[in-house]
């Protein structure tokens, strides 16, 4: 075979692709990154929080360089019914400890920074073009990419095109995710001056809060709401199972849920007076471990969400740290294979070993049953928030009538639901976490 145009081609410059390209370029390999957007992060979306541990491994000084919004030091979880909210509010110095810390980010600046790191290391970039197909030789080994009439070849191709990877489906034969393995996320960004954010969330200057909502935000359906504070804006959104997303299939379309969520008495004051500046929607894989497809092929590796690497806990989505870590492992495995002159599946297999030894596959495996529990646990999204409201009303509201003892106030609320059933549900959930 004629010599390839590049040592490696990376498809997509999200968290996974940019990091893979960075590792390859840093090792002196010739790398081409093909990114569909007119710039990295142009259309990419995330809720907003990246756990830094895996980023730190790639860029030890990322705190100084990366366009991070705020360090998250304030966590809040809220159960909401249509009118009330019961929240757990938590701050602690451990949240800010190195390697445990997390940051809110906005994809446009963050992805551009990642891309600039890859570019500065020597990766070549093509923007504004979507790869349509992977090229294969007569033995089925991936040897490059095609877009339009142009074909470009490489010894290794890394597919990091995000969720719903058509390339994986079309060219690598991976199955298309089932609708039940997909959720949809929508998000809006509201501008608010930094000082007001700090006042509204009771955080020190430069630090930020993360809030997760369960219950009425998805009208009691499986999913949840999220809120992250940025430097001078707030990211607010919802994730809901996809069967709900198709308009007409459910009573309330997702965008209407978001409108209702924004008007909820616990949310409205947070964004009062803030200016809506951005609106976006995106798929979220939620199949967990069971939807991770094959990710090592002859001449190709798959990283990030294209490999199903994402954890949707219903109330929280985690994918960026997986993307960064898998991108790094894919990049390093490709370097190793290139050095050894063997980019077949067996030459590239160190990727699989590294993945299985890391938190990426281990965490997905640990939480493997959670998606199913969540799907079958509708109470979590409907009745529990109502129960919380009843309990706390019983606890807090005083109307001058002689009060019954606490236990007698609580019992009817719990009894209504059956104490054993409740305990059983909780046990099942805890076991899957």
């Amino acid at each position: 075979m004629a010599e390839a145009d590049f040592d490696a081609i990376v498809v997509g410059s999200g968290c996974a692709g940019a990091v893979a390209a960075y590792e390859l370029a840093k090792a002196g390999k010739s790398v081409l990154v093909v990114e569909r957007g007119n710039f990295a992060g142009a259309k990419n979306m995330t809720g907003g929080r990246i756990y830094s541990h895996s980023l730190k491994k790639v860029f030890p000084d990322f705190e100084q360089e990366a366009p991070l919004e705020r360090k998250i030091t304030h966590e809040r979880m809220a159960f909401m019914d249509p009118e009330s909210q019961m929240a757990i509010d938590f701050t602690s110095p451990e949240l800010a400890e190195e390697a445990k810390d997390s940051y809110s980010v906005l994809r446009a600046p963050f992805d551009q920074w990642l891309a600039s790191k890859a570019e500065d290391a020597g990766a070549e970039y093509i923007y504004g073009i979507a790869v349509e197909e992977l090229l294969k030789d007569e033995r089925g080994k991936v040897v490059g990419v095609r877009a339009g009439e142009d074909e470009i070849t490489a010894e290794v191709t890394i597919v990091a095109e995000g969720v719903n990877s058509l390339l994986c489906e079309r060219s690598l034969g991976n199955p298309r995710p089932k609708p039940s393995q997909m959720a949809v996320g929508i998000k809006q960004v509201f501008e608010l001056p930094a000082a007001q954010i700090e006042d509204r969330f009771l955080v020190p200057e430069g630090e930020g809060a993360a809030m997760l909502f369960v219950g009425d935000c998805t009208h009691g359906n499986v999913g949840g709401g999220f809120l992250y504070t940025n430097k001078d804006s707030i990211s607010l959104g919802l994730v809901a199972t996809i069967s709900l997303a198709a308009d007409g299939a459910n009573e309330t379309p997702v965008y209407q849920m978001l409108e209702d969520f924004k008007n909820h008495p616990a949310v409205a004051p947070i964004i009062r007076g803030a200016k809506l500046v951005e609106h976006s929607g995106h798929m979220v894989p939620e199949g967990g471990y069971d939807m991770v497809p094959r990710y090592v092929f002859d001449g190709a590796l798959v990283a990030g969400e294209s490999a199903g690497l994402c954890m949707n806990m219903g109330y929280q989505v985690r994918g960026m740290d997986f993307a960064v870590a898998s991108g790094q492992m894919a990049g390093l495995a490709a370097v190793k294979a290139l050095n050894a002159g063997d980019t077949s599946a067996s030459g590239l297999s160190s990727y699989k070993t590294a993945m299985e030894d890391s938190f990426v596959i281990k965490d997905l495996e640990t939480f493997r049953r959670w998606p199913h529990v969540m799907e079958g646990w509708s109470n979590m999204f409907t009745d529990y928030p109502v129960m919380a409201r009843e309990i706390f009303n019983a606890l807090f509201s005083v109307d001058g009538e002689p009060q019954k003892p606490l236990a007698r106030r609580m019992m009817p609320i719990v009894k209504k639901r059956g104490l054993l059933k409740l305990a059983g549900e909780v046990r099942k959930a805890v076991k899957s976490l």
Partner: protein
Amino acid sequence: MNIVAAFKVVPDDQDIQVAPDRSLDYSKAKNTVSAYDLNAIEAAAQLAAAEPGSKVVAVSAGPASIDDSKLKKNVLARGVDELYLTADDACANLDANATAAVLAELLSKVGAWDVVLCGDGSADNYAQQVDVQLAARLGVPVVNGATRIVAKGDALEVERTLEDVVETVEVPLPAIVSVAPDIAEPRIPGMKDILAAGKKPMNVAGTDASFGAKVEVVSCQAPEQADRKLEIIDASEDGAIERFAAALKAAL
């Protein structure tokens, strides 16, 4: 034939925000090639293709931020052979007279050229003046509104579509021709074009000259938005068409 295409780099107007005081906020707007200058670049590439042995040089003047690798590759991926930029903050927001002065200086670096193609007008000023001022400064003829250009030895035959007539004219070279967008649809560069672009010569420099403004900007503000009812319905809703039709009738 040595063909020059002059393009302006402007903030992408889709991302210009209007601040509460109605001033324009460009902080989210990326630099892009002014829309109708892409047609000039394409016309230059097509003219070169029709005249074997031709070369296309693209030139632009603007603030230091126009020296952007993505932007340069984008231009060079469109059938352009070489790029010359004057990228200097002294060249931000110049009026036509000053722009022509900078471009004249830049053209002197390009070497011999036969024709400079300009766009129909820049996206921000849309003054349709830089081409004319440049011609006046260089002492060469200029025609605008070109919808077809054919090389005829040391002249060009140009069809220009004006308000009421279509003129066919012969322009002696060297000359400046500004083209109507109709002349050529900008191509969509492919991966190979973009890769090749990265390897083409790019000449970027600042300038020592200063360019006095001939026009003073008193104010620049978004217009007051007319109050509109903003009643939006979905066509699939029951009775949507009927309601829309009724509103139409009522408004007439």
